[in-house]
């Protein structure tokens, strides 16, 4: 189990996450939903150890060293210049077979022998996703994985998430699109005002709309009416 206990994270003087408690269980896809700037990426980066917590504990099976336990797909993944897709995957796939890379290539139809800078945004996203999956780590963090993917990619990703669940992985997926999470997740936590507003089980997803509508400013209707006359 991965848990974040009472964590607070801040940038200079602004606190992004405050006294946050979350637990993630093996064999579960856990969604993190929130508006832009609600702290989804900060939470992911903190779990990865890229940001230091001001207070609190992050532990996986009671161990605080998570460095080789987590695979993290960034919203905008990094690629070196003059790098081929194959090289990227071979560097990441140290314990996987080369045949796996071929299968992934066939599934996502990525020209792995080409330089990555020639790829489209969606292809880059698919490549980074494959890299994360080849690592075969127990905790997988996917920060807005559906962004930039085409219809086919989205469909494959949904199936992949369900397979990861069967393999007993802890999968944490962030998005600001409700439908994407509703379809794939067993639990959804709503980030709002620097904390988890609520965590809903699959059976309570019908309450999502009500919970989300409370995020929005009361004045938004009036402003929209004023703008469009």
């Amino acid at each position, binding site marked *: 189990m991965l848990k974040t206990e009472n964590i607070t994270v801040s*940038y*200079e003087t602004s606190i992004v996450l405050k006294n946050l408690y979350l637990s993630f269980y093996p064999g579960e896809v856990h969604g993190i939903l929130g508006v832009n700037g609600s702290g989804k990426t900060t939470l992911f980066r903190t779990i*990865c*150890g*890229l*940001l230091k917590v001001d207070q609190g504990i992050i532990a996986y099976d009671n161990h605080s060293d998570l*460095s080789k336990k987590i*695979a*993290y797909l*960034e919203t*905008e*993944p*990094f690629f*070196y*210049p*003059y*790098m081929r897709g194959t*090289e990227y995957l*071979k*560097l*990441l796939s*140290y314990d996987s077979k080369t045949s796996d890379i071929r299968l992934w290539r066939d599934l996502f139809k990525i020209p792995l022998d080409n330089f990555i*800078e020639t790829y*489209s*945004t969606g292809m880059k996203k698919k490549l980074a996703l494959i*890299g*994360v999956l080849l*690592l075969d780590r127990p905790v997988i963090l996917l920060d807005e994985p559906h962004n930039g993917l085409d219809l086919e990619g989205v469909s494959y990703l949904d199936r992949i998430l369900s397979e990861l669940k069967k393999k007993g992985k802890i999968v944490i997926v962030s998005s600001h699109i409700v439908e994407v999470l509703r379809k794939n997740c067993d639990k959804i936590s709503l980030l709002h005002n620097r904390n988890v507003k609520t965590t809903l089980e699959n059976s309570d997803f019908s309450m999502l709309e009500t919970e989300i509508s409370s995020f929005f400013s009361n004045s938004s209707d009036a402003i929209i009416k004023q703008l469009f006359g």
Partner: protein
Amino acid sequence: MFKYLLKFIVFRTNQLLRFCKELGLIRLLIAIPLFFIFLFFLVEVLSRIHPLAILILYIIPIGFFHLSRQDFIFLTHLKPDIRVLHAAEYNIATLPVSLVAASAGSYWIVPIGHLLLTLFVFVPAPKKFRKHANKDLAQWLPSDLFEWRTMFRKYFWTAIPSYTIGLLLSFHLFTLPLLVFYWSSLIAYTFSHIEPREFIEQYSVKSAFIIDKIKNHSAFLHTFFIPHYILFTIFNFEYVYILIPIILFLQTILLFCILFKYYHFNSSNRKIHNEIPMILFSLLTIFLFPVSITILYNYWRKITFPYHA
């Protein structure tokens, strides 16, 4: 683990070879000897200031690179420890410095330099410099200098200390040339990001956009360096003529970075990889100034050609 480390080093070497291939044999035949001559010159100059000053050639380029790395997450995904990867990269990348230092007689500095680099990898990752932007300085700049705003936000802790140290050591003849050479890497970074296409499309003629850009950025850069120019003149009055090549060098580098960016402008990319081209161009500017002017002219012609993408 050694197997995976080797795999990574082989990839980095391939990357360099691909870049060299793109550059072309003729350019390489010119650039490599120039690079070593320049390195030899720097080693000579620094060893005259103080024998240990040669260590600057290990620490400053690698320090700048280390603090500006963006591959942290990728490297944490690899099997070897990130510090092992950094140490291997830095020690291999500085082999030319060791070669030149040893051939110039300062062979004793080589193990010290490599030891320092190996210790340097334990310097905490630069994450706090990236997220803790210095908004005050950045906001003080006009919005049309947004490239400089980004640079100061990201590299405040390398830009301002180097600028200040330069002022404090301005009594030394070599301070300004070295500072300008160091700042050329910051200029390269400044113009390595792509802005939205709409910024350019506000101008009906692309050349007008580029000219405006050159004017504004030249005015800013030279105004920013005026304290250095004044102190250099005061402390090194007998060598004041050196200011002309220094200012020309700075201006040429700025022109190159701007023109290179808009020559490679492509709204689907976010970043232009101009670091190595800029290093080669700066070497050309030092040793073969007319060639660098020709390169600038060619870029200008291609950018402003109406059917260029």
